[in-house]
């Protein structure tokens, strides 16, 4: 069966896109209304994490720089929101752009030296950053600001406003807000990568020398990518305070850093929608392992958290062998059997075939055709 070809930006494509978003919206509403509270909390977590993973995706998948430490930006954003809300009485929504801005500046500052530290070394530095973040958050001198080792409680307390038609619980409302924010941010990101800016980034990722020669200067684009990805991760950290009313040093630490990477790999590096899938996977995995753990002799009796970690680890390795492109890559692969999205085809006249022939063969051809050499 031949796949159906749909041109991008054509009416058919628009129908497809709108249907997709509509399904998502309906799904979110259904979940918000129907699911028990503890599950809604997990979904809120997933919504926030999906934005963080999206940030990571932008820098790893689209600009080709390895960052293993985006959890530090997440924690930073969370603390920023906490300080603004608790110490300065800011409303929740207002803290988000600020967290993004600060995160972006921080990302820019870190992205500058990152230009000089390539590849593997950058992975090492960013990983060390994630490991160090909790220590930084626990510095005694900053305890007034950060709440020290115990973290800083952030009572946001935003209840469903009376004008909202759907009757949902507190957790349901939180989830709706976060899902809406996430959706907006995903939409933005999706447009960004399809724009000239996005394509410049991808060209840098795939072939830096070729791109530079074509006029795409690495330094600006790469630090820009770093900054934007940090802004996303930071905003995600701020977002989470709505659902989880505390920020703690470990929020931005090593464990989260690994979870973000796991989510990125599971969902699909370089695929925007993969970030959602990845976030759902890492949030729900511990739930799954909690129920299976009983059946595995090694991991029963309170060791199910360990099983989750083991599962993350095994999945990471397995994905590299089986599905390095991630789950969404596989989904797209299956989808491509049925429908394929192609860029808008330019109208050109038929091109003359140019066959590369060496001098000897050309001479031979001429001779056999009876012409003079």
């Amino acid at each position, binding site marked *: 069966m031949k796949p159906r070809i749909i041109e991008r930006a054509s009416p058919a494509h628009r129908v497809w896109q709108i249907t997709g978003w509509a399904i998502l919206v309906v799904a979110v509403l259904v979940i918000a209304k129907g699911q028990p509270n503890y599950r809604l909390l997990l979904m809120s977590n997933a919504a926030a994490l999906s934005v963080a993973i999206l940030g990571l995706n932008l820098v790893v998948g689209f600009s080709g720089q390895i960052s293993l430490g985006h959890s530090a930006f997440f924690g930073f954003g969370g603390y920023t929101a906490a300080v603004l809300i608790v110490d300065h009485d800011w409303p929740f929504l207002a803290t988000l752009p600020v967290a993004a801005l600060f995160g972006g500046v921080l990302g820019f500052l870190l992205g500058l030296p990152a230009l000089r530290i390539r590849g593997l070394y950058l992975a090492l530095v960013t990983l060390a950053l994630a490991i160090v973040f909790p220590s930084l958050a626990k510095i005694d001198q900053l305890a007034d600001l950060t709440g020290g080792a115990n973290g800083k409680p952030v009572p946001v307390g935003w209840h469903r406003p009376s004008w909202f038609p759907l009757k949902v619980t507190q957790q349901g409302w939180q989830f709706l807000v976060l899902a809406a924010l996430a959706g907006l941010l995903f939409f933005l990101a999706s447009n960004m990568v399809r724009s000239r800016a996005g394509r410049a980034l991808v060209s840098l990722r795939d072939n830096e020398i070729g791109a530079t020669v074509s006029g795409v200067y690495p330094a600006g684009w790469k630090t820009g990518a770093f900054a934007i990805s940090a802004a996303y991760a930071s905003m995600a950290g701020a977002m989470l305070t709505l659902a989880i009313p505390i920020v703690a040093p470990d929020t931005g630490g090593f464990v989260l850093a690994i979870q973000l990477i796991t989510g990125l790999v599971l969902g699909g590096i370089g695929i925007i929608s993969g970030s959602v899938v990845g976030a759902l996977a890492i949030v729900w995995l511990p739930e799954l392992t909690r129920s299976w753990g009983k059946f595995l002799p090694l991991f029963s009796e309170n060791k199910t958290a360990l099983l989750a970690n083991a599962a993350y680890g095994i999945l990471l390795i397995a994905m590299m062998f089986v599905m390095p492109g991630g789950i969404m890559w596989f989904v797209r692969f299956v989808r491509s059997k049925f429908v394929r999205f192609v860029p808008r085809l330019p109208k050109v006249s038929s091109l003359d075939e140019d066959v590369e*022939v*060496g*001098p*000897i*063969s050309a*001479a*031979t051809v001429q001779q056999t055709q009876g012409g003079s050499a």
Partner: protein
Amino acid sequence: MSLLDVKGLTASYGPVPVLHGLDLTVDEGEVVVLLGANGAGKTTTLRALCQMGLVNIGGSVSFDGQRLVGRRPEQVVRLGIAHVPQGRGTFGELTVEENLQIGAYVRSDSEVRADIERAYQIFPRLGERSAQHAGSLSGGEQQMLAVARALMSRPRLLLLDEPSLGLAPLVIKDLFERFAELNHSLGTTMLIVEQNANVALAIAGRAYVLETGQIVLEGPAEQLRHNDAVRRAYLGF
């Protein structure tokens, strides 16, 4: 029976085919040249013969009656083929002496030391620099080192990939004279892949011309030197 017998050799990098069915032979004691421009597939041919990775190889390659296709690279070396890669491929961080020692890796006899001394006799400049890091040698010296290293395994067939690349004309002339010398005195069979047809054809017995992955011409070197098309394309006159 030829020492090296290649029939229908194909090779590709992933999905991109580079060689489209080569036939060539090299007899014991010969110097055979494979001429070709950039992109013709010369390096790929040698790599396909040595079973070096990244190349999907098809067809038949027979060395001294033994099948080569599908063997591991170290097995090819043990069978008696030595490969001097493009760009010299010396071990820059090792000394000249260590480069020669490692050239004899597949040997376990006691004459390695003697062979190293002989290499210093043939290439005195290497002897002078025996304790220096190979990376600090000039281009011509590195090429000599690469050849000397290849000879350390006492190969029956020496494969040389564009030995003239990046070297000054006088150095090239000297180098190829030594190749001829080695062939006469040691009887080493050589398959030289080159762009520089002038020097290569001067020492070769037979030659092939490779274009976009296919052999388009073959014959005695002298004959090819006087072939009009070859002269125009590769000899510049």
